[in-house]
């Protein structure tokens, strides 16, 4: 049996199980009401896409900078990196959002909730990225750096030509996983009233007194975002492998 066929069969079996569970629920389904509000779903989905993309880019940049700080020999620089990573990874995103928006952003007069939401989400994901990058860099054997020096490469050349290409291959799976988490974590931005996908779906539920019908399109909408990310990551891993 080919791998793709096996994937499809298992997914279908799982969908069947879920369908059975749905059919056994003591509940009066009302799908037409949800279809009426499809615009709200689409708007919410687009907002989630925008949030995720922005945070994707920002968190990768923040993570890269932070991982450099973590490797620095300057005591103060390393401390900034370490405190940032530990603080962010040690507190829930919900708490960071509430404090970030209602306390910190309020104090500095930053009103735009979309900006604050993306910022908090990026800082959150960036801390995890930093550790991923740091781990990737540390996994490269010292002899690689020695070889690069021995040929006479400058530190910058060595980073660009030798270290980073290898580090990227090493961290790709973990980064892809982090990006998928980011898309899902963006649903938490609803607590500061950002009209993203999950909140919009819940509003449709509330307005149509439907309660459950919105959750299927909700799950499907997220899968549309996360499955391509995972597939892209697997394809990139295949291209970058050391063996043919």
């Amino acid at each position: 049996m080919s791998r793709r066929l096996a994937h499809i069969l298992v997914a279908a079996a799982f969908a069947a199980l879920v369908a059975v569970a749905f059919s056994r629920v003591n509940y009066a389904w009302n799908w037409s009401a949800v279809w009426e509000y499809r615009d709200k779903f689409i708007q919410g989905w687009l907002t989630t896409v925008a949030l995720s993309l922005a945070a994707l880019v920002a968190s990768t940049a923040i993570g890269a900078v932070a991982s450099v700080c973590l490797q620095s020999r300057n005591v103060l620089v390393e401390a900034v990196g370490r405190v940032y990573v530990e603080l962010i990874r040690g507190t829930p995103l919900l708490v960071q959002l509430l404090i970030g928006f209602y306390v910190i952003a309020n104090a500095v007069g930053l009103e735009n909730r979309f900006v604050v939401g993306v910022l908090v989400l990026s800082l959150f994901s960036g801390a995890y990225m930093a550790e991923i990058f740091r781990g990737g860099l540390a996994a490269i054997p010292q002899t690689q750096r020695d070889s690069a020096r021995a040929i006479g490469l400058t530190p910058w050349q060595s980073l660009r030509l030798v270290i980073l290409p290898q580090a990227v291959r090493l961290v790709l799976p973990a980064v892809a996983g982090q990006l998928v988490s980011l898309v899902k974590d963006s649903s938490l931005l609803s607590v500061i009233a950002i009209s993203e996908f999950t909140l919009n779906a819940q509003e449709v539920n509330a307005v149509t007194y439907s309660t459950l019908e919105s959750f299927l399109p909700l799950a499907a909408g997220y899968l549309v975002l996360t499955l391509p990310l995972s597939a892209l990551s697997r394809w990139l891993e295949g291209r970058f492998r050391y063996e043919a």
Partner: protein
Amino acid sequence: MLAISAFLALAASAATAAEPLRVGMELSYPPFEMTDPQGRPTGVSVRLAEALAKHLGRPLVIENIAFDGLIPALKTGRIDCIISSLTATPERSKSIAFSEPYLRTGLALLVGARSPVQSAADLDVKGRVIAVKKGTTGHRYATTALKQARTLVLDKENTAVLEVVQGKADAFIYDSLSVYQNQKRHADTTRAILEPFREETWAIGLRQGDEPLRGQVNEFLKAFRAAGGFERLGDEFLPEEKRAFRERGIPFYF
């Protein structure tokens, strides 16, 4: 769990073989649904639930569920009834059934100190920002009747209040009692417009078609009121508010 043991200790004569009465409420709405410092459910609705369970001769189980999840929980059978300061509305009646109402109140406004808003009508203007709690009648009112304004949908009462306090929203639409309490708490940054622009009644939520239970609940409410149960609840939990509302001539009575 603690509600069960407390109840069993009080009513030892209760039939232990009877099926538990599962009541759903969101324990974040003092003084109706809240927890005491030891973490046990308490409040007006909790007392009401206890009295109802005793009347029915069934052990009580209180399920703490987020407000907008109560109706789904009822419909899927996870709980038997909702006693959570739930407003009876025609729209909700399409999904669930209600008991006879047990409390009359209304929607009021918690307004930011620097906002020019004087009434609900003032909110239906482009540029106004309204905070609501997801799934409440305030949410419904804002989305259907106040379409010019921008509505912020928050999932918790305290963040909605924060939006008004910090001037990010002009007003928070919520029931008059909570508006009164929040305004007291944030006296410098908010004003309260307590005259309800929309009257509401609270009732116990039940599954459609569950006629036996509905009959029993209505019977219970009648008996409870006749025995002065509601008066006692008002005195125990809302003495100051009762007085304050009566002084202003604002409807708030069981």
